[in-house]
C-alpha cells in the first residue's frame, strides 16, 4: 500500500480541485442558469451535510479506508460486495470526467483529432502520477489549484468591461420546487462525489484535522464555482442557457483593446488540470480500493490496467454529449445519491446498531 502522507492543507486543496473538477466545464442545473451561482451555496450546504455524515463514519474508524470500514461493518462477503459497487462508482466518475474533457477538446480545439490521440497521453501521465502515490498527487495539485484560483481572480479583472450586472436579474424567478431540486442535484454533483475521499482520508497525517479540511475545501470549491458561474451569467446573459460549455464560452467574449481576444484556450487548459486531478484521484481510489478488496500487497501494478479501463469507459460510456448532459441532469442525481448519502448512512446506521467499533482504536 501507499505509505505516503498528506497534510490537512493538502487535503483541502485536493477536495477543491476534485469538486471543481468536471462541473466547471459542464455545469448541471442549467434550467436555473441565472441563479445557479446562488443555488450553488444551497447545494454546498446540503453537500456539507452529506460529507459530515461520511466524516462521522470515518471518525468512528480513524485510519481506515471506506472499504476497510465496510468489511468491519458488513463482514467480509457483503462488505466486499458493497466495496465493489463503490468501485463502479469511482470508475464511472473518473470515466465521466475524462469523457467530458475529451468532448470539450474534440468540439473546440481538436475537431479532427481522434479520441485516442487525446486520451492516451493523458492516461499515460495519469498512470505515472498514480503510481507515484498520493503524496505526489497532492503536491502537484497544490500548484495546479493555485493557478486555477489565480485564473478565476484574473478573469474577474478581464471581464470588467463586458460584465453586465443587469444580466443577473431577476433573482429567484424559479418555482421553489425547482430550486430545491437543483440544490439537491448540486449537492450530489459536484459536492457529493467527495465521498471518494473516504479512500484517502487515512493518508492524512493528522486525522483530527480532517473535519476542518473538508469544510474549507468544499467551501473553497463552492466559492470558485459560484464565482465562475456569476461571471458567466453576467457576461453571457441568457444566451448561456443554450451553450454546451458556458464557462468556456464566456472566456471567448473577452476582448481587451482588440488585442487580448480568444483567450478561451487558457481557462480550457487550466480546467483540464482540475479534471486531471479529479481523474487521477478516481484512478488512485480504484487501484487502492481494488487492492484492498482483494487483499493485495500493493496497488501500483493496478494503475495501468485501470487507466486503460478508464480510457475504455471514457470512450464508451456516453454515445454523445447530449446523452451525457441528459444523464447528468436526470439520472446522476439518483445514482449519486445512493453512493454519497444512502450507503454511507446505512453503514453508519449498522455500525451504530452493532456498536462498532468495539473498542476505541488509537489513531
Amino acid at each position, binding site marked *: 500500500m501507499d505509505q505516503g502522507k498528506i497534510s490537512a492543507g493538502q487535503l483541502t486543496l485536493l477536495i477543491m480541485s476534485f469538486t471543481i473538477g468536471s462541473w466547471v466545464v459542464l455545469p448541471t442545473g442549467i434550467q436555473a442558469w441565472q441563479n445557479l451561482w446562488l443555488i450553488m451555496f444551497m447545494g454546498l450546504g446540503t453537500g456539507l451535510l452529506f460529507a459530515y455524515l461520511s466524516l462521522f463514519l470515518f471518525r468512528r474508524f480513524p485510519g481506515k479506508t471506506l472499504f476497510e470500514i465496510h468489511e468491519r461493518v458488513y463482514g467480509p462477503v457483503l462488505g466486499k460486495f458493497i466495496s465493489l459497487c463503490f468501485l463502479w462508482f469511482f470508475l464511472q466518475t473518473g470515466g465521466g470526467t475524462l469523457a467530458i474533457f475529451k468532448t470539450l477538446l474534440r468540439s*473546440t480545439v481538436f*475537431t479532427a483529432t481522434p479520441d485516442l490521440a487525446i486520451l*492516451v497521453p493523458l492516461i*499515460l501521465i495519469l498512470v505515472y502520477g498514480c503510481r507515484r502515490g498520493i503524496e505526489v498527487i497532492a503536491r502537484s495539485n497544490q500548484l495546479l489549484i493555485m493557478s486555477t484560483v489565480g485564473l478565476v481572480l484574473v478573469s474577474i479583472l478581464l471581464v470588467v468591461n463586458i460584465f453586465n450586472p443587469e444580466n443577473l436579474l431577476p433573482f429567484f424567478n424559479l418555482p421553489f420546487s425547482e430550486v430545491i431540486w437543483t440544490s439537491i442535484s448540486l449537492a450530489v454533483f459536484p459536492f457529493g462525489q467527495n465521498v471518494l475521499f473516504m479512500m484517502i482520508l487515512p493518508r492524512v497525517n493528522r486525522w483530527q484535522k480532517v473535519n476542518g479540511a473538508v469544510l474549507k475545501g468544499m467551501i473553497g470549491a463552492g466559492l470558485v464555482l459560484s464565482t465562475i458561474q456569476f461571471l458567466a451569467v453576467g457576461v453571457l*446573459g441568457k*444566451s448561456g*442557457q443554450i451553450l454546451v460549455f458556458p464557462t468556456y464560452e464566456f472566456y471567448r*467574449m473577452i476582448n481587451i483593446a482588440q488585442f487580448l481576444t*480568444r483567450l478561451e484556450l487558457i481557462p480550457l487548459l487550466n480546467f483540464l488540470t482540475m479534471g486531471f486531478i479529479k481523474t487521477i484521484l478516481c484512478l488512485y481510489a480504484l487501484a487502492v480500493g481494488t487492492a484492498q478488496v482483494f487483499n493485495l500487497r500493493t496497488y501500483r501494478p493496478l494503475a495501468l490496467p485501470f487507466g486503460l479501463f478508464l480510457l475504455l469507459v471514457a470512450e464508451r460510456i456516453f454515445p454523445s454529449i447530449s446523452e451525457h448532459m441528459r444523464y447528468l441532469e436526470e439520472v446522476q442525481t439518483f445514482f449519486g445519491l445512493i453512493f454519497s448519502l444512502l450507503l454511507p448512512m446505512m453503514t453508519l446506521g449498522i455500525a451504530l446498531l452493532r456498536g462498532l467499533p468495539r473498542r476505541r482504536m488509537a489513531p
Partner: protein
Amino acid sequence: MTGKLQRRKRLKKGQGLLLLLFLVLAGGCWDRRELENLAVVLGMGVDFPAQGEGYEVSFQIVRASQIQTPGSGVGGGGGGESKPVWLLRSTGPTFFEAVRNATFQSSRRLFLSHNQVVIISTEVAKKGILPALDFLIRDPGPRNTQWLLLTPDDPGQLLDAAAGLERVSALAITDLIQDYHLTSKIRPVKIGDYVEMMMQKTSANTLPVIRIKENAGKKELLLDGTGVLKDDRLVGFLNYKETRGLLWILGEVKGGLITVDLPGGGKATCEIFTAATKVKVEARADQVHVKIEVKVETGLGAQTTYDDLSTTGQLKKLETLQGKAVEDEIRAALAKAKEYKADIFGFGEYLFKHDFRTWQRLQKEWERYFVDAQVEIKVEAKVEGIGLVTRPANYQAPEE
C-alpha cells in the same frame, strides 16, 4: 531468476506503452494548420444565390504578402501588382456547405477565426438571420465578437468596394463601426449580442445598415441607419435620428453632436460630453408606463450666427433647445418602433428583470402593451463648455 524475468516483462510493458504513444502520435497532427496554408478571412457576406436554394457567401480573404508591413522587405515584395484582398464567392445549401465548397476555388483552407464582420443582405434578413448564421454560432472557430451588419446591396460587391484609407474593407468596416461613439447615430451589434437578444422573449433586434455609395464612379462604403428585426426577421429601418433616439433610451450614447435651430435663425452645434439614461417601466392597471430620464452634458462647438451664445442666459436657452431636440429624437424612435410593433428598447426585458410577476402577466400580449405604452420623457441638458472663445469676433452688444 524470477527477478530477471520480471524485469524483462517490465521492459516489454514499458516498450509497449512507448510504442502505443508513438503510434498515436506518429499518425498525428490532425488539426495542424500551417500558417502559410491558411486563407485568413476577414469579412463575410451572406446573400441568397441568384438561382437555386441555399446561401451565397462571399469571403474577403487577405493576401498577406501583399500587405506591406514595416520591415517585411522580403515577404512583401511586389506590392501593388494585385489587390491585397481576394473576394471569393461560394454557394451551398447551408452556410457551412458554402464555406466548405469554397475549397473548390481556394488553394488554401479558409480560416474563419479572425473574421471581423458579417454582412447580411436584407433579403436574407427578411427570411431570418439565425438559420443563416447558425454555423457561425455553433462552430468553435468563428469568434462571437464579429460585427453584424445589414446591407440592401450585394454583400460581395460591398466587400469589394474601396476601403478608403485602409487596404482591407472588412477592417475599414470594423473601424467605421467602432467609431460610432463620435456620432452615436449607429448602433453596433456583435453576433454574441444578437444571440443574447434573441434569448429575450419580447425584445426585437437592431442591426446597423451599410451600403455602397457611388462617388465619381468609385464604389465607397457608407454606414446608413439601422435595420429593425422582429422575431429574427427584418421589418423596417430607422434613420440616423431615430437611431440616436434608440441609443438615448438604451443609454448607449457615448458622444456625438446635437444641433439645434436657434430662435433668431442660425444653428448651434454642441458636442455631447457625457450622457446618462434612466429608464423605468411600470405596469399600472392595463397600461404600461415608461419613464425615461436623460441627463446630458454638452459643450458648445460651433454656431452659425453672430450672436453671443456664451452668456449664461443664452446657454440656458440652448439647454432647453437641446432638451427638446433629444426628446424629439426619442419620440421619433418610439414612434417608429411602435409602428413596427418591435420592442427594440427592451421594455419587456426590463419588466422581466425588475417585476417578474407583472411580466408574466403581460408577456402573452406584450406587443399590444408595447404599442399602447405611455412614455414620459424628461431631458436634463447642460451646456458646460464653450470652447476657446466666448463670442464671435465681430459681435456687437445690442445697445441698451
